[in-house]
């Protein structure tokens, strides 16, 4: 029977492959797990060196209950080189085990490098290589990127891991950093040609502070936004989902205690219109949430809630419009995605302005309508 003969041949082939096989087999403990990478502009004057790459290696054994004495949980290793792949190879001469980038959590990029060189060239490797994840976080560091890795945190010994966790938390809870924070998201937005924001981290002594955004145009850093500004951006995007706060206090009257409002849900709709060959946008924002803090300013009543809602509406609207104006005038950077809206709904017009959208955006008329609802006010009625 041919079937049997085939079976025998197969068995022989498979057995020989067992003997010669295992090309890719490297035990998990023998790999060097690189959890974070920091990229900077080198300080040396060597013309050829374009990057200063710091990798953070985690030693899992040092994190177990019974570590081998003398091992440390993290090791930061810097090299300078003309291309990143070369950096990776150069590192291999210093580390005793094969390096593995499959668990890369975070890529930190120094301010200087991002401003002068742009980050696209350096990210090529991370896009191309199969080991890399699309969910690796991409963060701009104010100052030197390697300093962020040198910080020590009492909660988690691996600083890269700590910053990574912090990012996740900041995106969801405080809304102080932009929603595009991974390599994959950056790649998608960058390819579509839009200006975008990346999260920014400040190194303060031995700890880090994550708040604000870096404006990226064609892969280059062109400016910074504060955390509060990023919050407003997320109001326009409607991605400011929950947990974060908006204070309704008026800055002019500082004696009066402020009321704080906890956002539980938000939705935004951007309407587009072409009038007189100029784009017009109307942003409609629906906000929903709880009263978080009021400073015991008196009993809650229907009327008071209405009043607070109106105050909030006005406050959000004014702040946001102010911020949009700033973006239009100062950076001409459409980080809000108005251009994308035009592409979707006014494609013919978009095709004409695509080339110089920055100017067109600067002149676009933008209106805002905010509708806040305070649903609950907590355990006390005061």
């Amino acid at each position: 029977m041919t079937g049997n003969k085939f079976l025998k041949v197969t068995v022989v082939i498979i057995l020989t492959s067992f003997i010669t096989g295992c090309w890719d087999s490297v035990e998990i403990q023998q790999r060097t797990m690189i959890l974070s990478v920091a990229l900077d502009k080198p300080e040396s004057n060597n013309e050829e060196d374009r990057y200063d790459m710091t990798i953070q290696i985690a030693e899992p054994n040092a994190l177990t209950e019974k570590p081998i004495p003398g091992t440390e949980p993290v090791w930061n290793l810097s090299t300078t080189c003309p291309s990143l792949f070369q950096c990776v190879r150069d590192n291999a001469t210093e580390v005793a085990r094969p390096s593995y980038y499959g668990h890369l959590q975070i890529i930190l990029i120094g301010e200087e490098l991002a401003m002068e060189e742009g980050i696209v060239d350096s990210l090529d490797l991370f896009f191309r290589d199969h080991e890399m994840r699309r969910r690796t976080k991409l963060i701009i560091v104010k100052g030197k990127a390697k300093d962020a890795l040198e910080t020590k945190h009492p909660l988690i010994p691996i600083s890269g891991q700590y910053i990574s966790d912090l990012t996740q938390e900041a995106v969801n809870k405080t809304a102080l950093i932009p929603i595009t924070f991974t390599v994959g998201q950056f790649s998608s937005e960058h390819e579509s040609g839009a200006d975008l924001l990346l999260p920014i981290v400040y190194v303060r002594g031995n700890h880090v502070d994550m708040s604000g955004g870096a404006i990226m145009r064609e892969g280059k850093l062109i400016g910074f936004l504060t955390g509060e500004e990023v919050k407003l951006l997320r109001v326009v995007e409607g991605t400011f989902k929950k947990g974060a706060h908006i204070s309704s206090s008026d800055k002019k009257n500082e004696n009066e205690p402020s009321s704080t409002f906890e956002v539980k849900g938000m939705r935004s709709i951007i309407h587009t219109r072409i009038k007189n060959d100029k784009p017009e946008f109307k942003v409609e924002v629906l906000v929903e949430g709880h009263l978080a803090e009021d400073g015991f300013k008196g009993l809650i009543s229907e009327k008071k809630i209405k009043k607070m809602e109106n105050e909030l509406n006005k406050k959000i609207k004014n702040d946001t419009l102010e911020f949009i104006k700033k973006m239009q005038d100062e950076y001409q950077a459409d980080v809000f995605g108005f251009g994308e809206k035009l592409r979707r709904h006014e494609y013919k017009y978009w095709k004409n302005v695509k080339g110089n959208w920055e100017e067109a955006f600067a002149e676009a008329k933008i209106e805002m309508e905010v509708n806040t609802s305070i649903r609950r006010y907590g355990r006390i009625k005061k």
Partner: protein
Amino acid sequence: MMIKDKITTAQLAVTIVSVMVGVGILSYPGPVAEEAGVDGWIGIIISGIISLFSSFLIISLGKKFQYQSLVDYGPKLVGRYINIIIMVCFILYFLTFVSMVVRISADATKMFLLDQTPVEVILLGILIMSTYLVVHGINPIARFNESLQPGIIFILIVVLLLTLKDADFGRNLPVLGDGVVPVMKSIPKILFSFLGFELLFFLLPFLMDKGKVKRILSVGIIVVTLFYTFIMVLSISVLGHKEVVILEYPTIALVKNIEVPGTFIERLESIMMFVWIPFSVTTVVIFLYGASLLTSGLLKLEEHRTVSLLLFPIVFLMAVLPENVLQVSYIAEKTSYAGIGLSFGLPLILWSIYGLKKGMKLL
């Protein structure tokens, strides 16, 4: 040819679906988005309709000849020698197609999971597995597809649904912003992904119950069309159409976007492996079976087993031959054009010959 094994209509439909849904699923959004931009889904639906039409032509033609195989009724239509030429074309096409499918899936596997392993080993693994099934004939093959295909399509859909969190369906707008021309241009590239139903030329005689074949087959082709449309729309919604164009395997990138924290397997690419290897194995199995069936039919052999064992080294050599990925895609593209000719052109030509001969009362 002796027909001992019989398969049900549902099995035939699943088999055709399995051949159509092959490794192409990993990469087709790329070329389609390159041509048609965000309107790729329209092109996919049109291609689905074209494929449906072509497969109906093949079935109706078979029906005129009592559901025989093209090997048997071909001589009556076009004469013995031209029929032999057509058969040889089919055999060559099947073999090249099989070897390219194996090579592409081996390359993808090597790229994502087995960096150091020689591609020959991966090829050999997939081919041995497939040939084991091929020598057992159409019945286990049909059952293999039947038991595997619905499951993996289901798993793939569930996995893809997890990306909905990042999806912005507005990215698929505007509809027909650049007019119909780009969509029309994209159709040949999509038709590649629908290749496979030409096997109906040869599988019809195996049918147990011939009545409902058109109805059930159209369900199959509609499922494939919807499935393709779904992946296309989803990949544009998640990645944006510009990103889809530059990615080699957009579907895998789509899945790479998912991370499920708190489970034993965090990244779902591994589940993609469980999907694309079976996809390519089912395609390889049926095309290889088709090739050995035709060869044995041409040589007037009783059974196909020996032939399929002889074809095994040929396919392996053909798959190893291309030097790099670009060559592979070059050959794959050329093969697909041949496939388009054989599966969309040939039925039309045969039908017109049939009409002519019928008109001249030669049949």
